[in-house]
Every structure is written in C-alpha cells, then in structure tokens.
C-alpha cells in the first residue's frame, strides 16, 4: 500500500504468474513498455486489451494566468498522452465502491455547510460508544489520509477536454462540497446526526473485520483498543487497519453500502447529507470490550462466537419460556371456567382490572380465585341476556365472551382509565347480587333506585353529569348502566338521563 513498484518488481510478479524465468520476464516487460512508447509516437494510439488505451491528444493553445505572479500567459498548443483504463482493471480497482451508483438529485436538495468532523462527532457521543468514537477519531487523526483529489485539478482538465469513454463531460457544481464517502452510506434518512451512521457501520464492520483480520494486526489493535484512545496512535495500527480495508472491503462495504444505497435510490431527497467521511478513513474500528483483552485471536474468535450464540440462545429460550408459561396459565384459567382459550383475548380488560374497591388483590390463592370465578361466571351467563350488548362497546363485544370473567363490557368513556367493574380475583364477589347489574359485582356501590333525571345540555358529558349529580366521575358507569347507554360517548342534547340512587356497600 502506497509502495512504489518498479519494473523489476513488476517483472518478478509476472514471472510468478506466468512461470517464465525472471530474466526473461524482465526483458519481456521492458520490451512491452518500449513497444507502447514507440507505437504511441508512430500511431498516436495504442490499445492493450485488459490494460487500456494510450492516446495522443492535441491540445490547442490557450491564454491563462501565471499562478505565481498573476500575469497573463499564453500556453501554447501541445500534445499530451492520455490513458484510459479498460473496464476490467477499472472495476477491479474500484471494487470498494462497486455498489455505488449515481443518483439523481431532485430540486431543492442542498448540502449543509461542512463542519468539523471531530467536533460534530464528539458533541453527540453516547456514553456507550464513547470508546468507539474516541478510538475511531484518534485513528482518523493519525492515519495519513491519502490525498483525496477533487476533480477540478489540472489532470482532470485534460480529461475533460477529451470526452471520456464512459462519461459525458459533466459540469461541476460551483462550490465544491467537501463530502466524504460516509454520506453515501447514510444509513438512516433521518435528519439527526451521523453518529447513527457511524455506529451502525462501525458495528457492522467491526464484527466482520474481527473475523478476517490477520493475527498480528489483531493483537496490535487489541492491546490498544482496550485502553484509552491515546494508545491507538501507534503507526502500526493505522497501517494495519488499512490493510484490512482492501482485503475485506468487498465483504464489508457492499453489505452496508447496498443497504444504504437502496435507500438512497428510494429517497435521495429526504436524506440529509451529512459531512461525508474521507474515502479511505478506516471507520471500522475493532472495538471489543475489555473482556476480550489479553486474548489471542483464536480465543477471541471462539469467545465471540460462543458469546453471540449463547446470548441468542438464552434470549430465545427465555422468551419462549415466558410465552409458554403465560399461555398455559391463561388456558388453565379459562378452561376451568369452561371457556376455550382464545388467542385474541385482549389483555387490556384483564390488566386494567384493579378492583376499585375493597379487597380484590391478586394475592388470593388461585384455587379460591378459580372457584369464585366459576361462580361469578355462571351468574354472568345467566344474566347475559339481560345485560346485553347495549351496554358493551361494539369492539369489545367479541372479546368479552373469551375474557369471561372480566367485564370489558364497561364502555370506556374518554377520560376513563378506570378499572372495569368486575375483578375475577375478588372473593367478595362470591355472593352475587340478584341485581340486574352483574357488571357491578366489583363496584363499590349498588344501584338501589332512581334519584331523578337530568336533561342533557350542550357540552355535557356523562362524566360531567356524574360529577355534578353524584359527586364523582367514577359514578358515570352507574349512569350508563341505568340508562342502558350503548354508546356513552354520544349523548344527545335534551335527552333525559336517569340518575341512580347509590348505596355504598
């Protein structure tokens, strides 16, 4: 990486690949490039399959400015040599970015002014990722970033003058936005910070890098990572982390990139372009928690695998256990009551069953509970015809039979978060009232008569009426029951509601 390969090295390489002896290979390579030069002079164009095309292009004179002193110069016409690489070699070299495509920008997409990465990143650190970020940043700081070229350089000017084989000559937008690759990996189309990107990518890649990194790199990085970021300033680690890049970019980057790329194509406008990351800055820091410190690579791999498998397995087992237990408990409960356990039992009524009254605690022994439930249920079934769906919310109707004991039938007034009236676990419900309102089993009051009537005025609700007539919004349920209101949310102005006479139990 960043080495200079000379002719001899090239010759040795070809000797290895072709099986030719070194001397002959060297002669061949020399002859090769000699021929190219000669043919170029002669024919103005040389095409080598697999490598590319060398061309001589005539450039006409132009007036320009001397960069040093600003005076006008005339650059005379001349010829220059261009090289256009073949698609095979071009793609091979571009493999880290193979998954990217150009995307069309719609109107109004702008790019925020460039901010300092470090400041931006550190300001939004989460504590958990602090180490990752720190180490990433120091790595970034210390990696000699290979020069990223912006396209409007002199070299590219000459490229622009001749039409590229694959691209139209394109005009660049005026202020060059210093964007980094990372923005291409915008993982979320969210407007908040790109720490999310970094996290996700660091997370994704670090796992894969672990698997692939060679031993010596690993131990070097390991030793450093477990401590503060300052230790990551060693030369070897950036270089070595970098070497992982070409070896594993195909694996690491495309999976991340393709996911994000598809997002890009779907919704390029919505994504906010954050300051992109320098192309070759290693974002993927091998960050293991300290439990991995002092491990060799093999151990590390084993542990990593073990841990992840163990964790997964444990989690799934736990979840399954919980599900099974709750299902069994539920079905026992219901079976004993003579009902089928139905999957759509809404938990709302049962969970909200907190008896607003005397003693219904769930601490009652289950057998007792079950018994009381069955008693209550039988009565419910008797009375079911009386207290019909009028009083039940339409939606809840289907679940009422299955919920059995719980009276989800209590229509929910808007402000009502109250417990439904009956609690299955209430022992005291055993003695069921012979009143026409079995729903009130759990209630604190009995309806013993009619106190009067109330004419509904504009802006009144059942709750407000209960409050004014009976002293509490809680009493609205009694009004609803007495008046058989099918939809307690809708009471018409001018209608007469009977106000119940209540007696405390």
């Amino acid at each position, binding site marked *: *990486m*960043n080495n*200079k*390969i000379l*002719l001899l090295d*090239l010759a040795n390489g*070809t000797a290895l*690949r072709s099986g030719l002896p070194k001397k002959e290979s060297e002669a*061949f390579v020399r*002859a*090769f490039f000699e*021929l190219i*030069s000669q*043919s170029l*002079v002669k*024919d103005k164009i*040389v*095409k080598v*399959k*697999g*490598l*590319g095309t*060398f061309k001589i292009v005539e450039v006409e004179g132009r007036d320009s400015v001397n960069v040093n002193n600003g005076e006008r110069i005339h650059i005379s016409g*001349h010829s*220059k*040599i261009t*090289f256009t*690489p073949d698609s095979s*070699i*071009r793609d*091979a*070299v*571009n493999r*880290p*970015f193979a998954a*990217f495509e*150009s*995307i*069309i*920008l719609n109107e109004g997409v702008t*790019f925020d002014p460039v901010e300092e990465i470090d400041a931006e990143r550190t300001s939004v650190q989460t504590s958990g990722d602090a180490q990752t970020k720190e180490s990433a940043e120091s790595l970034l700081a210390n990696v000699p970033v290979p*020069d*990223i*070229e*912006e*396209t409007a350089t002199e*070299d590219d000017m000459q490229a622009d003058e001749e039409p590229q084989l694959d691209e*139209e000559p*394109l*005009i*660049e*937008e005026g202020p060059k*936005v210093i*964007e*980094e*690759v990372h923005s*291409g990996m915008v993982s979320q189309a969210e407007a908040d910070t790109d720490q999310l990107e970094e996290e996700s990518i660091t997370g994704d890649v670090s796992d894969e890098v672990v698997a692939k990194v060679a031993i010596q790199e690993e131990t070097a990085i390991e030793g450093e990572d477990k401590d503060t970021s300052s230790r990551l300033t060693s030369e070897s680690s950036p270089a070595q982390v970098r070497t992982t890049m*070409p070896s594993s970019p195909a694996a690491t980057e495309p999976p991340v990139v393709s996911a994000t790329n598809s997002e890009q194509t779907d919704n390029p406008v919505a994504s906010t372009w954050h300051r992109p990351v*320098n192309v*070759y800055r290693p974002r993927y820091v091998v960050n293991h928690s300290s439990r991995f410190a002092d491990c060799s690579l093999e151990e590390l791999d084993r542990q990593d695998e073990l841990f992840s498998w163990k964790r997964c397995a444990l989690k799934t087992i736990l979840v399954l256990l919980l599900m099974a237990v709750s299902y069994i408990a539920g079905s026992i409960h219901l079976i004993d009551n003579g009902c089928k356990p139905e999957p759509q039992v809404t938990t709302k009524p049962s969970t909200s069953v907190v008896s607003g009254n005397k003693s219904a605690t769930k601490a009652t022994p289950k057998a007792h509970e079950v018994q009381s439930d069955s008693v209550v249920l039988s009565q419910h079934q008797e009375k079911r015809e009386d207290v019909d769906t009028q009083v039940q919310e339409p939606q809840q109707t289907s679940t009422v039979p299955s919920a059995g004991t719980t009276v989800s039938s209590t229509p929910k007034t808007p402000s009502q978060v109250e417990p439904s009236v009956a609690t299955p676990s209430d022992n005291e419900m055993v003695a069921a009232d012979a009143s026409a309102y079995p729903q009130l089993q759990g209630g604190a009051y009995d309806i013993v008569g009619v106190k009067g009537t109330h004419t509904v005025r504009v802006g009144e609700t059942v709750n407000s009426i209960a409050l004014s007539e009976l002293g509490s919004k809680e009493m609205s349920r009694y009004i609803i029951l007495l008046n058989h209101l099918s939809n307690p949310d809708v009471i018409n102005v001018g209608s007469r509601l009977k106000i119940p006479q209540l007696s405390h139990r």
Partner: protein
Amino acid sequence: MNNKEFVTELAKQTDHSAKETQTLITALVAEICAQLTDENQVSLQGFGNFEVKKKMEHVMINPSTRQRMLVPPRIDIKFRPSTTLKEALK
C-alpha cells in the same frame, strides 16, 4: 495500433509466439492490476507511472439535460507519462 497488432509486434520483438505473448501480457496486466488494487504506484522509468486516485463524491450537472446527479466516490487509475516520453512525442 489495436491489440492484435500490438501482440504480434511484441511477439516478434521478444521471440515468443503470439499465443505466449498474449498469456504473458495477461500476466503482466494482472500484476499491474493487483498492485493498483493495493494502492501501490507502478512506476516505470522512461515511460511513466500508474497510480490510483480517490475521488470524493460530488454533484454533477448533466449539461444536456441539466439534471443534477450525485456521483458516488470512486477510485480511478491515473497515468502520468514521464518527461522522457513527453519529449519524445513533441
């Protein structure tokens, strides 16, 4: 000079058969490609050097359609001819 002519000419000059030179060329090109993929610079005296250059993503405007496009980052191969070669041409 297209590829075929080049191969035959090279074969003549290096005393190999055309087929052999083709395989040798393939090997050589593969070697260059491998070095470039590793971000090494291939430098040849009197000829020039091949290097890779990273280009950041940028916004391009298609001149004909006036459509704004975001071009993704790329790694390109650059060839810089040496002065001797340039002189030879002039």
